[in-house]
């Protein structure tokens, strides 16, 4: 019996864990945006919604609703407001329900509202 086969039987390990170490290429991946809540008002929210080609963003009253599952990480909202919108760096985004993907971002209200 080859030695490696006996070793495999002894240890009983057939598959490995994930990940063995952080993957360096992950830093280069396009990722969905993260929003700086103190900098987005109603007008900017409207511009962000208009810039997106997918149905990921829409405004619901004083809340910007971001559906991560529908985001294509195109980066157009980051072009509209580079200071207020930055890449989140998150790419391991699998979820078991679609409700878990919907994120609500509060908007800054103008004085008197």
């Amino acid at each position, binding site marked *: 019996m080859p030695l490696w086969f006996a070793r495999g039987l002894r240890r009983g390990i057939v598959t490995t864990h994930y990940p063995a170490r952080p993957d360096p290429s992950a830093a280069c991946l396009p990722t969905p945006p993260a929003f700086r*809540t103190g900098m987005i008002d109603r007008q900017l929210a409207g511009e962000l919604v208009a810039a997106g080609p997918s149905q990921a963003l829409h405004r619901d009253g004083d809340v910007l609703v971001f559906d991560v599952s529908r985001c294509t990480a195109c980066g157009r909202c980051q072009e509209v407001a580079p200071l207020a919108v930055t890449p989140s760096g998150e790419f391991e985004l699998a979820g078991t329900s679609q409700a878990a993907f919907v994120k609500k971002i509060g908007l800054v209200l103008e004085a008197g509202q």
Partner: protein
Amino acid sequence: MSAAADGEAALAERLRQRVASQFGRSLHIRTLDTGSCAVCEQEIRLLSAPHYDLHRLGFFLTPAPRHADLLMVTGPMIRAFDVAARKTYEAMPGPKLVVATGACALGGVYPADAFVHGTVGEILPVDVWIPGCPPSPLALLQGLLVAVDRLAEKVSGLSFTADGADS
């Protein structure tokens, strides 16, 4: 009502344990393209390349739905594909999992109209959703491991706000 909810939770827990014990180290995947632009397929193809090495994790791609435990669906689910999608799903032996892959399959790119359903969930019971346009092979691996309960999903804990506040 609460007794029924408890029974449902216990059933879900039993199913979760059964999926983990049956598929944790050996899962066969059939891919289904329902009108995707083929970039998701390119990323899925990369999974079996040495860089990502799908097989080390106990996942295998199979061409036959009858050999498959998991259906990996890409594309916006065009209506012309309804019958083929249902036949593929019915041909798989149970217990079976469905993974919707990519922004099209999750409803982000094509709204429902006369040609597409817009989301895979309209036709098939989806267990895991993997966003991305396309999802990178790393994201696909994480999604598959979430499907067999070897990793916990983390998207529900993320806020996607740069300063960590939610409002």
